[in-house]
């Protein structure tokens, strides 16, 4: 169960830091750092640098991404920014513009 859920109608402007999971279905602007999994759902808008244990993106993300484990860009995802993780997948149907760095 996700510990922090940013619902579809909610906007956070600022800095979020947590040791647990984060699910974003709304809007985040600023900075997002979690120790566990970060999920950016379809319909969500994130304009932030994101760090997490792992990251799944199905929504829109603008910003640089660093994950300890892996980054999965799912179909429908729209990502502009650099991705840094040991394992990265980009699904068919995902849009991505930026650099990938798997030399972690």
């Amino acid at each position, binding site marked *: 169960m996700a510990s*922090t859920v940013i*619902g579809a109608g*909610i906007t956070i*402007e600022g800095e979020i830091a*947590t040791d*647990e999971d984060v699910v974003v279905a709304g809007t985040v602007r*600023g900075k997002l750092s979690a120790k566990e999994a970060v*999920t950016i759902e379809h*319909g969500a808008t994130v304009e932030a640098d994101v760090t997490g244990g792992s990251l*799944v993106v199905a929504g829109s993300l603008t910003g640089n991404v660093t994950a300890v484990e892996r980054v999965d860009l799912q179909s429908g995802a729209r990502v502009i920014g650099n991705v840094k993780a040991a394992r990265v997948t980009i699904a068919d149907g995902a849009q991505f513009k930026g650099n990938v760095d798997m030399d972690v």
Partner: protein
Amino acid sequence: MPVLASRATPMAQPRTTTRDGEARIGSSARIRGRIHGEGNLVIEGHVHGDVTVRGDLTIAEGASVSSQVVEAHALTIAGELEGEVNASGPVTLAAGARVRGNLRGSAVAIDEGARFSGRLECEFDLPPELGGASRTEGRARAAGRR
């Protein structure tokens, strides 16, 4: 919300998808900045910044919120809150709540064991025996602890 397709990856666990307008700030989360939007919000973590939601706001036990202004419909506080509260619905200070600031709501309830320091402002109908015929703005000054 669409359920994320489960994938054959070790990290992609099934997760709860959010219902519309449902939001929660988990107990280990710290937020510096502004939170606003529609729908209900539950804060279990620590928030430093203004919170404005159209729906109900719950500040759970163990949570702390420090803001200039907190705006919501119904507001339930069991944690710590510092700042001005502007609720369009009822405000409840549950046992264990610690609140510093002015409270405005359609109704205010302070439970036994809650601590409140500030001013209460709420509109209510005075009973006829107290001479209240129509809506009167009641202003109570409450300070210290209960």
